[in-house]
């Protein structure tokens, strides 16, 4: 589990899966969200408060930029969710999502 050299934290998100200028998919939030929910929120269906479109959270447009992550509706661009994480706390807002539909554990 070693990481050879320490890098300044502002380089987080600048490479590999993340780029501050482009977006990725809601699917990429699975790890972060699994710390908070007992089910896979990325396969849950959520309705956008702004435009009313329903879709899987995994299909949201996700922008990763320090200090937080913003998920936007792929149809209207409204903010669905924001996640801000520090070393010991997570703040989650789902203010742009309503009527979440989840598969029951079988």
């Amino acid at each position, binding site marked *: 589990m070693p990481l*050879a050299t320490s890098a300044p934290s502002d380089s987080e998100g600048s490479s*590999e899966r993340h780029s501050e200028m482009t977006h990725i998919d809601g699917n*990429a939030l699975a790890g972060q969200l699994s710390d908070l929910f007992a089910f896979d929120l990325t*396969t849950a269906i959520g309705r956008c408060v702004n435009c009313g479109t329903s879709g899987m959270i995994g299909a949201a447009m996700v922008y990763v930029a320090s200090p937080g992550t913003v998920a936007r509706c792929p149809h209207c661009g409204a903010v669905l969710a924001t996640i801000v994480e520090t070393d010991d706390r997570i703040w989650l807002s789902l203010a742009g999502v309503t009527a979440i539909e*989840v*598969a029951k554990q079988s």
Partner: protein
Amino acid sequence: MSDALPPAAARTAWRVGTVVEARPETGSARRLVIDVPDWPGNDAGQHLDVRLTAPDGYQAQRSYSIASSGSGTRIELAVDELPDGEVSPFLVEDVMVGDKLELHGPLGGYFVWMPQSVTHDPRPVQLIAGGSGVVPFLAMVRAHADAGDPTPFRLLYAVREPGDVFYRQELTHLAASGLRLDYVYSRTAPRDWPVPAGRITKDALAGFAIPASDKPRIYICGSTGFVELIAGWLIELGHAAGDIRTERFGGQ
């Protein structure tokens, strides 16, 4: 949405795995097999997070698609090294057989393929990979072959040059047994290749992809720029947005 909800995925957790195999995949990528004793199995197309911790406590974490699927406790990754990356250079250059890695997974039920016996969906499947975006598709084409699944599968694999192709031998083998496989080379094509190297065009995509009239389910994985380009053209070619699932890994 009309999509059926997939079965709830196996509970995810942080786990410790041991690298049991490491070998070069291409000039810049490496294939790793990791044994994770408490791995609950994973679906084809799922990913995991790898976390590295420096002696001073600094941590870096990145997501990687899993090239394997099923109930086993050995998982396979193929990692492309990004020169300015924080995690991939370690996985490609430094990690050795016997080393332990912190893994979080399996993750994500959105970008997965399930056999027809589960989905009861007979529509064909079109996979479109840009570079190392082929990794989740390895899991899918392997699962498809192993299950003897009757769903028509076609893979379009866009790479810069022949030396960048991941899993070439295995893909060639799968192509001989039912997978339709097409390569597009953007920088250098093999000698005698019928199509000159160059960026993929909408016409080429139309020629290599299952037509919209067959209503394929489509998965696209690659850099954000690649995925945007391909998904946009597919919509213009008449495919329904709801039939397209994407996995962008950032970048241009």
